[in-house]
Every structure is written in structure tokens, then in C-alpha cells.
């Protein structure tokens, strides 16, 4: 990465992984993930769902079923960790806002807070991609994305983010040396998942891949870290020494961050000293008070920090969006020319987005390092040195430093002139760790729902569970709270079974309240049927069968409108009408249908044999489950067709019998 300029591209672009299937993922966000954004945009892109969420309604049911099935296939292997509800930027935001709540039955969502009021501000994605063509482990890949993007629509539509992304090949077996190569990322993830009270497969993925050279991770975790601890595991500003570019002399740092925390001169000096820098060798990219990014308080800096910067000699660089007026000096020919560039040559003047990127460029002579991170320029993110030289950090943060890369724009910026007033705002929010916090999680095994909660005032904890039963919903008050043996949490359990389904748990503690979705821990066969808002259950069942057939090679399950083609539909069946009107065609139709069904069976069988050769247990279990579902689907098809035309279901009946025979042959059980 030599002097490479950052590109201008989409974060939702996974075309490079066209031949791969997502097999697991960990995603972190400060804000609570927006389920509508995830369901309509993020998941369709990463799961490669071809159908669209809603156009004129024709395709919506098949989209929902495809999404449901793909999430089911990944059940529990996608995890999202966000910050505590009480720490969200806009205060408490109730999660039950859309018809897509059901995605949380399959995706594990957790907030930090199980260990105390810890702020999760990192933006890290780990994606485990499984090769489609070659089932060998060697073809699997691990994708790592570090950025400034939260998991909501605004982050993608209204903000400019800085991103560092790469992927590496995964080895067939885990190795300790691989884990070690990821450096600080490993203890960071251990602490983050511990704080969220969630287990993920991330460590297993990392242990199968080696971190490439040429860059390194830097991270922060909340807590008071002693000098001794920081020596072995350098968090926050203690890690900045690793960012020093090669060479001698003072390091020049250029910082761009939309939120600037409250800095005292001693804190700033300490921060700069960490990388052999000095405040008067530090440049902060900032905006004027009439800048569009100031109008909605998108960017924030308190006045005391500006005072600190001015007194300490920090140079403020003026980033303008009316940059056509800014004249840049071209170093190669000495000419003065106008530029349309603010952050990039494709950054157009009418771009209404604001920069949420957090970028640090460290330079010493010709040597430089670019740091892309979630960490704002604040003591909360980087930590404050205490009297005993320990470091107090409030946030989880993660970033990647890249050798010899540049930010691509700060060299074009000019310093604030005396007539230009930097924007300051003392009312803006700070990401603080409040003393009051509330954390909870809940899961349901089909019989009992288990709830665990922790907060700053546990004696004031109240909770209720929303239950759905057929077409009505009601609340059940949670009464049997038990204090855990470590005295840190309370747990409760409730019996929910039969036609009842838990929806979410509402908890209140003093002025704090939160709602957590109940993770569906039932056995796979019990959670297969979707309960999707707006989709007729009968139609859902038929769509699921068609998608299953399609997975094993059936063509034309859906016409181009996304509607079920004639065979899968229970009304207006063109094929059946044709058969009824033209009995002479019947024989051919049945043979054609049987051939199609048996091709599906053969394709499934071929996949199963391939997985058997490589002894892939998870793959075999998955295929066995699909085999049972295929047999059931053929049975349903037989019943459906039998209702319409008495002789039509022969092909489906034969396919069902054949499928059962093959299942018996591999398991010895009767089906």
C-alpha cells in the first residue's frame, strides 16, 4: 500500500464474493442495529438475496421467505453487538419498530453491559465466507472490515465513512500461531464478547487464518489499565507508539474526527507524547461555524478543547464543501488550480452527506501511517493518564493502521484564516459511561424462556414479557427474579409453550427502560415455520417448498415477477388447467414433472455424497435436514395437486417415496 489514495466505493459491495456463501458473521455497532435497514438492505446484500423487499408487493412474500430461510441456515451464527440502550446517541430507542423483528430470532443481538456500564463504540465486521465451488476448507475466506459505520440507514445514506477492508484465506485447521498473528484483536474480542455476554465463533475463524503483514490493529477497551498491563497489552493511547512511522524527529499527526472530546492541555500533551509527537506538530481537520456539517450538530467540539488546541499550537485545517473556491497548489508544476475535492475527487459539491470518518495520519519525513478507526478524537476513546500512570478508558474502539497509506485530502486543505471562526458547541453529547445502566438478554428453548438482567439498581428492576398467542398478544409480568450467586445479575424463567410465542422482554429500572428480543433456541425442526408479518402462512409454506426445490436445481419456481409459477401456486394453476383441458397431454406432463422431481433428488444426493467424502459434519447435518424437508415438501405437493386433479399427484408421490428411501439408506431409520 504505497501512497495509495483511498477509493470512493460502496460498503455494501460483496460482488467479490460471488462464489462464496456467508457462513457466519460478527458485526459491532454503537447504535442499536436498525432491523429495517438490516432486513431490507444489509442482509439482502451480504446474503445475496436476489428478490427485492417490496416493489408492488408481488415479490415481497418470496423475498421474506428467502430471507427467513437464509437466516435459518445461519441460525445463531450471526451476532451483532451494540452499546447499552441507555448510551445511545438519541436516548432510548425502542427496538420494536418494524415488521422485521423476527430477524432477531435467528441473529444474536447483545449489548455491552454485562460487566458494568461499558460503551461499545467499535465498528468491526468479521465475515466467514464458505467457498461454493470447492468444499475444501482451503477455499474459505475471512473478511475483516474496520470502519466508522454503525448498522443503521443514516450511516450508509447520510454519512461518509472511512473503511479498511481485506480478506484472507482460511486454513483447514485452527492453529495458535494464527491466533497470535492477529495481535490485539484477539483480547479485544474476548473482552467485547464477555461484556456483551455472548459467545461467537470469531476466535475459531481467526485461528484458521493468518493476519496479513503491512498493517496492525489498535484497540481500546473500557477500564483502568495499569502500566504493567499496558506493557503486555497496550490499549488506547498506550498503543500509539506502534503507530510511529520510521525515522527520527517529531511525528506530525493529522486528525479528522467528527466528535472532538473535552481535552485539557496535559491530556493532549500526553496523547501526543505516546507517538513522539507534539501538540504544535498536530493538525486537526475542522469546520467553520457556518459549515453545513455544523448546522445539525453533526460535528461537535467543546469550546474548552478549542482553547486547548489554540494555546497548544495545534493547527486547524479548514475542510470546506464549497471547495471549488479553494485553490490548491500543485507541487509538481507549481501552478495554482481550482479543485472540486473535499475528501475525494468524486466528492461532489452537492453531496449532502457529512463525514463520520475518524482518520489519523502519522507522518515522519516520507514515512507515514494511516489509521482508520472508530475512535473519535476524545479522551474517552483514547484514555486519560491517571496520577499512577495507569490509563482510564471508557470505550471499546478498534482501528487498523496501514503503512504508507494517505488520507488523500488533508494535504489539499488550508489552515484557518484569522477571519474564519471554527465551529464549537458545548451542548453536544459526549459518549460517557453513565452510572445508571441496564443490560439484559433472553432466550427461549420452546418450553422455558430464560431472562438475565443486570443494572445499577437491581432492586428497582421490573419486567414483563410480551406473548403472542394466535392472533392476540398480552403481557406477563416477570415475578420470579433470582439474584445470581455472584450477586451481579438477576435471572428469571417463565414457561411459554404450546401456541404461545414470546416476542420481547420489556425491562424498567428507575428511569431506564429497554426491550430485548428473545433469541429462538428451539430445535431446528420447531423453528422452521416462519411467522412473518404480512405473509399468509399457507403461502409461506408453499414458498418455502419452492425455495427448497430451487436450492436443488429446480428451474422456474418463480416467474420473473417473483410470483409462484403455476405448479407451486394453489390457484390459477396453468399447468393443471392445461392438463384438465387436454387430457392427451397428461402422460407427458406427469413424466416431465417426475423427471424434474427426480433431478432435484439426484442433485441433493450428489451434494450429500460430496459432503460424505470430505466428512463435513455440519454440512451433512444440513443436507440430512434438507432431505427430510424435501420428502415433506413432496408430500405436501402430492396433497396440493391431489385436491385439484386426481391423477396429478403421481409424480410427487413417487418423488416422496424415493426421497424417503434414500434417507433410510443413509441413516437406517424409517422415514
Amino acid at each position: 500500500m504505497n501512497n495509495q489514495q483511498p477509493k470512493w466505493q460502496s460498503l455494501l459491495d460483496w460482488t467479490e464474493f460471488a462464489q462464496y456463501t456467508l457462513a457466519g458473521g460478527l458485526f459491532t455497532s454503537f447504535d442499536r442495529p436498525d432491523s429495517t435497514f438490516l432486513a431490507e438492505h444489509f442482509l439482502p446484500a451480504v446474503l445475496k438475496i436476489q428478490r427485492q423487499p417490496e416493489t408492488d408487493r408481488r415479490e415481497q412474500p418470496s423475498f421474506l421467505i428467502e430471507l427467513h430461510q437464509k437466516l435459518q441456515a445461519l441460525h445463531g451464527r450471526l451476532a451483532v453487538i451494540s452499546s447499552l440502550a441507555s448510551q445511545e446517541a438519541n436516548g432510548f430507542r425502542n427496538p420494536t419498530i418494524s415488521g422485521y423483528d423476527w430477524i432477531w430470532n435467528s441473529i444474536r443481538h447483545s449489548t455491552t453491559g454485562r460487566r458494568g456500564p461499558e460503551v461499545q463504540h467499535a465498528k468491526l465486521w468479521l465475515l466467514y465466507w464458505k467457498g461454493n465451488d470447492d468444499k475444501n476448507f482451503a477455499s474459505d475466506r475471512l473478511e475483516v472490515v474496520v470502519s466508522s459505520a454503525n448498522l443503521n440507514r443514516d450511516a450508509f445514506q447520510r454519512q461518509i465513512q472511512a473503511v479498511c477492508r481485506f480478506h484472507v484465506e482460511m486454513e483447514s485447521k485452527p492453529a495458535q500461531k494464527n491466533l497470535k498473528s492477529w495481535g490485539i484483536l484477539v483480547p479485544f474480542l474476548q473482552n467485547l464478547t464477555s461484556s456483551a455476554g455472548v459467545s461467537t465463533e470469531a476466535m475459531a475463524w481467526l485461528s484458521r487464518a493468518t493476519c496479513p503483514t503491512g498493517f496492525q490493529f489498535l484497540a481500546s477497551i473500557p477500564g483502568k489499565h495499569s502500566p504493567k498491563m499496558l506493557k503486555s497489552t497496550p490499549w488506547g493511547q498506550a498503543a500509539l507508539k506502534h503507530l510511529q512511522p520510521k525515522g527520527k524527529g517529531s511525528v506530525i499527526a493529522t486528525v479528522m474526527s467528527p466528535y472532538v472530546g473535552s481535552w485539557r492541555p496535559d491530556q493532549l500533551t500526553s496523547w501526543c507524547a505516546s507517538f513522539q509527537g507534539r501538540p504544535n506538530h498536530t493538525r486537526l481537520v475542522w469546520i467553520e461555524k457556518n459549515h453545513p456539517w455544523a448546522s445539525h450538530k453533526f460535528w461537535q467540539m467543546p469550546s474548552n478543547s478549542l482553547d486547548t488546541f489554540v494555546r497548544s499550537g495545534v493547527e486547524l485545517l479548514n475542510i470546506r464543501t464549497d471547495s471549488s473556491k479553494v485553490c490548491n497548489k500543485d507541487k509538481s508544476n507549481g501552478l495554482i488550480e481550482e479543485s472540486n475535492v473535499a475528501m475525494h475527487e468524486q466528492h461532489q459539491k452537492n453531496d449532502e452527506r457529512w463525514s463520520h470518518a475518524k482518520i489519523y495520519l502519522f507522518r515522519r519525513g516520507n514515512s507515514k501511517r494511516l489509521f482508520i478507526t472508530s475512535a473519535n478524537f476524545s479522551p474517552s476513546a483514547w484514555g486519560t493518564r491517571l496520577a499512577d500512570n495507569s490509563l482510564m478508558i471508557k470505550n471499546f474502539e478498534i482501528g487498523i493502521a496501514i503503512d504508507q497509506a494517505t488520507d488523500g485530502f488533508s494535504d489539499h486543505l488550508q489552515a484557518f484564516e484569522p477571519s474564519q471562526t471554527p465551529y464549537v458547541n458545548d451542548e453536544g453529547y459526549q459518549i460517557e459511561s453513565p452510572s445508571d445502566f441496564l443490560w439484559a438478554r433472553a432466550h427461549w428453548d420452546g418450553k422455558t424462556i430464560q431472562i438475565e438482567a443486570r443494572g445499577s439498581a437491581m432492586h428497582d428492576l421490573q419486567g414483563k414479557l410480551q406473548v403472542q398467542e394466535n392472533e392476540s398478544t398480552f403481557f406477563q409480568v416477570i415475578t420470579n427474579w433470582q439474584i445470581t450467586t455472584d450477586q451481579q445479575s438477576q435471572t428469571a424463567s417463565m414457561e411459554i409453550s404450546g401456541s404461545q410465542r414470546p416476542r420481547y422482554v420489556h425491562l424498567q429500572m428507575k428511569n431506564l427502560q429497554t426491550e430485548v428480543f428473545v433469541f429462538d433456541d428451539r430445535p431446528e425442526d420447531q423453528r422452521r415455520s416462519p411467522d412473518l408479518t404480512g405473509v399468509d402462512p399457507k403461502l409461506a409454506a408453499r414458498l418455502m417448498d419452492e425455495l427448497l426445490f430451487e436450492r436443488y436445481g429446480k428451474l422456474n419456481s418463480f416467474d420473473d415477477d417473483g410470483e409462484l409459477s403455476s405448479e407451486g401456486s394453489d390457484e390459477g394453476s396453468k399447468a393443471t388447467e392445461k392438463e384438465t383441458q387436454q387430457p392427451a397431454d397428461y402422460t407427458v406432463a406427469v413424466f416431465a414433472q417426475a423427471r424434474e422431481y427426480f433431478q432435484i433428488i439426484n442433485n441433493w444426493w450428489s451434494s450429500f455424497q460430496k459432503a460424505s467424502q470430505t466428512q463435513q459434519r455440519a454440512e451433512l447435518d444440513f443436507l440430512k435436514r434438507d432431505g427430510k424437508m424435501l420428502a415433506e415438501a413432496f408430500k405436501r405437493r402430492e396433497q396440493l395437486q391431489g385436491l385439484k386433479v386426481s391423477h396429478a399427484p403421481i409424480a410427487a408421490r413417487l418423488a416422496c417415496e424415493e426421497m424417503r428411501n434414500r434417507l433410510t439408506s443413509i441413516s437406517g431409520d424409517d422415514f
Partner: protein
Amino acid sequence: MLQVFYTAHWDPISVRRGDALGLRNITDEFAEKLTPKMNNATQDGRWLTILSWCLVRSQGLYDSPRAVAKDERELQQLRYAWLRPLELMWVARTLILSGADAKGRTLAGQRAVKRWLENENINRFGMSPDQYNAYRQLGMYGGYRIAFRRWHGMTQNGDGWTPSVSAYTLARWLDAKLGKARPPWKLDEAKRSKYSSSNLDDSHARWWLKNWKHFRNDGAKAQLYTLPRKRPVSNSRIEKLAEHELLSPIVFGLDEDGKTRRHFAKLALNSKGQTHQAICDYIGETGGAEGGIQLLPHFTRMADAGIAAMEFVNNALNGNPKISLAKLAEFPGAGIVADQLHDATHRWLQNSKPTFRHQDAADRFARAFGLPTTKAIFESLILYHEQFGGGLRWFALRDGTIEPRSGKNTRVSRYRFRLWSLCRLATQCGIIKAIPTGLFESENISDENEDDNE
């Protein structure tokens, strides 16, 4: 490979926030009775002509990829890869030639295309990969694909892709009108190009941009004969298309669907209705006893009353974090809104006879209202919305308090039956002389294709 980048523009796929009361399925059934084989986006006959031309022109480039396509879906994607650049070039052509007058024309993807026009080095006409991929469904062809599959003579065997007699007729007409903007080879001439395996890369677009350089060119009557038409805002702007004699047999032909569309377009105009309800009342009375048309007035009254009550709650919240149910019931006008809803549900239940596949959804909604008090009606409505509504929830009821769940600017989508689209097409084809006044104000005419951003 390591990538460091800043995020490019992302114009999310526009998803309608309709179905607040879970009545969309039965609404679609009514729509299919009145305006068969259409969708809401099918409303400008000129786009039928343009897309026919695009299909014919791109057919020659569809270089037999059947040998390498994995399945039918992939085959369609490869076929579409040659069509999509043309759609977007037509959007670009319209933006260039109409300038400030582009507003009011349906131009899916125009935000991205405008960016591309400012800097043509941007890939995919300024779209992100997911947006470019989704353009197949949400772009111009996507809006008219049902017409190309289901309308007589548009595509061979209704495959939606291979142009047939009617599409060729329209394409020839437009090709002649393009004048100096016409591509430099004959309409029917097979044109071969190097096959590209990906439907998302830029090779197809590059080919078109290189070989149809004149797409920006004006002509003597380019505005009138070749560009998509502006949506009329009143009957003084109604226009009959120059190609109406070619379009009319396709849209309002002698096939059953064509006759049905013609019948209901005329009925809608004959109603002289000043409101959507009045038009539906007339259609319900005169549209025939079969097929459940007589239920249309009762259904639309109930659905409109439900949405009006939802809007009342939204307005009462007015961006506030919450409002108590009791306080809402005391708001001026609350009683009238609640009474109208109660009355409409009562009427529906009195007239409902099993006719539609999804009639149970309408019956269930009507039965959700018990006590006829204002407070009880709003309570039932909000609970019903949370449990059975589709898409974003507008608000939720918690311990007697209403809390907003989506922004106060939630776009209200009423339950409508494509009558606006039908009547606009009918005026363009010369079937009726005006669009019924009641449709100008009440239809969801700002369809998702006009502006691809919410």
C-alpha cells in the same frame, strides 16, 4: 487484498411503507379486478414505447449466452445486462433534453444518473452495486415488466424478454422518430459483442455508451415524440400520445383483460366523482354483480377511515415522545374520526360475503372494534396496527400511552386500486378524455419510480 476507501453515495432501494392495517392483499385483489395485469408503475404509455425499443435494440446483443448460463434465472440476468444500460441512458437522455422540465416524469434512478452526468467516469451510472442489481426490479423495465409479460403481443410466449409483434411495432415507430439520435445500425440488425460473464460489471454499459454516442441528441420534436411524458396535475394537461393508435390495441384491446381495463376506465370517468370514494361508489353500483365489485365502496370506505384515524394519531403525536390514549380521545375531531371508522367497519361486516381470497383480513380488521367509544376505537386501531400491520409501525401502545415508532414524516400510503394509472393510460390512448377529478387528489400517484429516494 487490502482496500481503504470512503463510502460512495448510496441511494437505498425505495421500499413502500404501505400496509399499516394489513389490508394490502385484499386491496391487490380488488385492483386485479379493476385493472388486470398491471402494476402501479405502469402509467406512462411512452415508457411502453421506449422500453419496447430498448428490448428490440438489446435483443441483437443478447449473444446466445444459453450455452453458459447455469439456469433460467442466470439466463434472464444475462439478458437483462444488455437492457439495463439502455434504460439508464434513456433516463440520462430525458434529464439532458428536458432540463428543468424533467420534474414530473417517471425516471427511476435519476439521482444516481444526475451524479453520473456530472462525472461520467463513475461506474454503473452512479449506482452502488446493490442499487444497480435491484434496478432490474425497481427500474423502468421493472415497473412495466408485467405489461411485457402479460399484454398481448409484447413478448414471445410472454417471456418478458424476447420482443414480439406489438413491441416491434412500437420500437419501429420510436426508432423513426429518433432522427439523428438513432443508433448507427438498423433496428433489426443483429449486433454481436464480446460476451461478459457478469451482469454487474460495466462492460455492457461501456459497449452501449461507445456505440450509441448520439443518445443525447435532440431532434425536431424530441420532446414530443421520444421523451417520457410529464404526469398531469390537472385535466388541462391531459395529452393523447402521438403513438396512441399503436398503443390502444395493446392496452385496451379486444382480449378480456383489455376490455376490462377499458370498461373500468370509462366507468371511472362516467362517475364524475369528485372524490375517490365517490368513484368507487359508482363503480360498485354499476360495475356488475360478479367478482365482488359491489364490495368496493364498503372496503374503500373502511380502509380510508382506518388510515384517516392513523393519520389523526400521527398528527396528535406531532413529533412528541408520547401521548396518553385518554388525551388523544379528547382531541378536537377525535370523536368524528372514530365514529367514521366504527361506522365503516360496521357497514363492511353487514355487506361482507366470502368473495376474495384475503377477505378474512378485512373481516378481522372490521371485527377488531368492540366498544363504540372514541378511546376504545383508537385503542383497538393501534393494537391492531402493531399486530397485523406490515412494514414500519407508526406507533405502539404501552400502558395506556402511545409512543411513536417511526419518524413523524412517515409517508402515508392509502389503499388504492391502480385507478390513477389506468385512467392516465386511457387518456394517453384516447379511450377517455379526462382523468376523473377525484383521482388527482387521493391516489398514491407519487409512485416509487419517480424519485428513487425516500
